[in-house]
């Protein structure tokens, strides 16, 4: 008694599951679209509170920190390492420059299935304008 049939089915299931990412990528249509971010165009908006590199990996920590400081300590001013002052506000400061949520925030968030709960309370200003 070898049960070869069942074992072969088992092996096929194993291969199918393990290679799922590959055949899924090949069968799900177009090659994976990379996030395509639209950056602010005005010169005075070229400079963010931190470097782009830092922001890419850690913006959520910064936003979290700002929220705590604003809500719990009532402070509203943030000074960058270069000495420039910003208001600690996602809507006004962050979204002031990165005004298009769909073309900025959502690009990476959707790409990686990140579901921040910023938008549980905050509104997307661009949506507001459209209305």
């Amino acid at each position, binding site marked *: 008694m070898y049960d070869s049939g069942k074992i072969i089915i*088992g092996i096929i299931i194993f291969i199918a599951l393990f290679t799922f990412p590959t055949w899924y990528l090949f069968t799900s249509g177009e090659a994976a679209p990379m996030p395509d971010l639209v950056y602010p165009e005005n010169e005075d908006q070229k400079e963010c509170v931190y470097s782009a590199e830092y922001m890419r*990996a850690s913006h959520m920590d910064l936003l979290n920190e700002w929220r705590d400081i604003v809500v719990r300590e009532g402070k509203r001013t943030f000074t960058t390492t270069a000495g420039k002052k910003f208001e600690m506000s996602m809507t006004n400061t962050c979204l002031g420059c990165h005004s298009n949520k769909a073309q900025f925030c959502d690009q990476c968030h959707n790409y990686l299935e990140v579901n921040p709960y910023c938008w549980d309370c905050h509104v997307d200003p661009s949506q507001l304008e459209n209305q």
Partner: protein
Amino acid sequence: MNLFFSFSALVILILLAVIGVEAVKLEFLFGVIIPYVAIAFFLIGIIYKVIYWARSPVPFRITTTAGQQKSLPWIKNSKLESPNTTLGVIGRMLLEVLLFRSLFRNTKAELKKGPKLVYGSSRYLWLAALAFHWAFLIIVLRHFRYFSEPIPAFVPFLQNLDGFLQIGLPILYITNVLIVVALTYLFFRRLFDPKLKYFSLASDYFPLLLLLGIALTGILMRYFTKVDIVSVKEMAVGLFSFQPVVPEGIGVMFYLHLFLVSVLLAYFPFSKLMHFAGVFLSPTRNLANNNRMKRHVNPWNAPVRIHTYEEYEDEFRDVMKASGLPLEKE
């Protein structure tokens, strides 16, 4: 000694990855070549091993019954512990594979004065094993957000479930805590239970340490050292679609994580971790207790030397005759 060997092996592996990426800048080696080689080892190794097993037949139906057989119609048959149908066997295997049924039975024997033997239930091993395996599975599935585009629906589903406590930012995943706690428990029980320590091999400590290494580097990346996950996904998708790219500036922690995963994959088919496939082929579990209902065929059932009735009667004819026993030949 065994622990020392395993621990040193892990440290060497970590140093290898750190030096390789940080000092020698071998990102392509650690990010592309090694993962591909590891995946090849994993896939081919596992298939090879399963075929190696499958090449030997199952000569006898040696089910271990853990419940009432099916016999007389009015005696309740234990359909899952002593299954006599394929459906029952599937049920038994599912219980075993998904819920670790047998481990759930675990007891601890203690000899007290008297002598008096007592058996307490002992389910920490079951709990830790279950926690580890399920957490590991969920974590692997959550990683599909890096592997696939568009992301399948099970990923957000698992993320929401796993993160429903909504603690911290990025959100704390329950499985991340579970896997570390479970692995730590499984590791320390090997050290502190003298029986286990006595028979644990290097190959018992090593996978635990390796998995802990993988879990901790992952957790460090998510919550502390940070990594640009867009680049990570770019790289992962590149790997899986055979268009490997090595984006800049991903950071050493990621390469370390990836390297340890590669080691795990490559090591897998050569190790006890093959229990994941072997459990399906275990003849005491995957066969029905229908031995007397349905004949099991042994392909090599070889002839053996036998003593026939004729030989027997020839030897004992006189005494049989004398005592009045019937004979074939007078």
